[in-house]
């Protein structure tokens, strides 16, 4: 952890440049192994902050090959992460642990 903390603080200074403008935010909720939003429209070319609340009693992993994102959200927990800036297009995502029901798509335009 110590090493990653040092690395992180080094990298923080690199990343600080883009942190000034407010990023669009999306609130996403998972209940009964389904996302409340199955289509998320976001502006292309802008970084977007996703806040995912898991109301289920089991953990889930937000997973998207096209968004290059993987984020575990614990039972009853909340997870925050960033996507993009994206080129215009459709980016499917899923809850990997319940891929049959937990499906959605980010549309950047």
């Amino acid at each position, binding site marked *: *952890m110590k*090493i*990653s*903390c040092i690395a*992180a603080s080094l*990298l923080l200074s690199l*990343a600080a440049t883009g942190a000034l403008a407010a990023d669009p935010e999306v609130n996403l909720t998972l209940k009964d192994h389904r996302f409340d939003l199955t289509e998320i429209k976001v502006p292309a070319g802008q970084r977007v902050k996703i806040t995912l609340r898991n109301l289920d009693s089991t*953990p889930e992993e937000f997973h998207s090959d*096209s968004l290059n994102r993987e984020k575990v959200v*614990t039972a009853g927990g909340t997870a925050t992460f960033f996507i993009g800036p994206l080129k215009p297009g459709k980016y499917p995502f899923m809850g990997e642990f319940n891929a049959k029901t937990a499906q959605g798509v980010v549309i950047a335009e």
Partner: protein
Amino acid sequence: MLNSAVIVFRECLEAALIIGIIAAATRGLPGRARWIVGSVMAGVAGSVLVALGADEIANLAEGYGRELFNAGVVMIAAAMLAWHCIWMARHGRELAASARQVGQAVASGSAAFSALGTVIALAVLREGSETVLFLYGLLAGGEQSAFQVALGGLAGLAGGALAGYILYAGAVRLPMKAFFAVTNGLIALLAAQMASQGARFLSQADLLPTLAAPLWDLSAWLPDGSVIGRTLNALAGYRAMPSGIEVVFYATMLAAVVIAMELVRRLPSPSAPSPA
């Protein structure tokens, strides 16, 4: 049950292929089986601890604890893999020349090999903690019996282990000279892949910019979800739609390892005249 087998297989595949490569690369090393098994068990024990502490880890660093943790794990693994490659560039020829009596050469480089044990433990730790969470979720969800979950999990694990074994068995059948080039090449690619994964975790937490998302899109040709895509991803870090920062880290790490290996090769031999 099939669902759990598929997910467990997917999560173990990467760790299994890493173990396969490392088991091949350390062929002939005395006591190798013991420390490979020991590293796997350490990784499994760590996975359970990390899964138990999932909430605490997730809440560290303002909610980005998991990204920092994962990035730390893969960056340490990348550094150790890179170090091993460079060490092998220096000593691989001696090893190849005296493959039957590697004892002495290996003793001098035992640190370089034990670094690989750490890589195994870290690979199992990272993939394993997600598998534990998933299986726990299945059990807690109550739709499947413990027996079904265990059966599915074991089937997935067996599939992953088989893939790792096939890679191992293929590598050890290569002639000695090609063998060192192939295993070292695979380890260099693993190092690059780990570095790019680290960049991905940090950009997910907004600690690094993505630069371009995606930089290119090959998903129509070779999607990440296909069998070949998954295998290439586990072996060489293939992604159909990588972000710019992943590509930068991948290319930088690969170039650094290749250049360092070339420089080290040109150094005069420290011991007896090298058997050019």
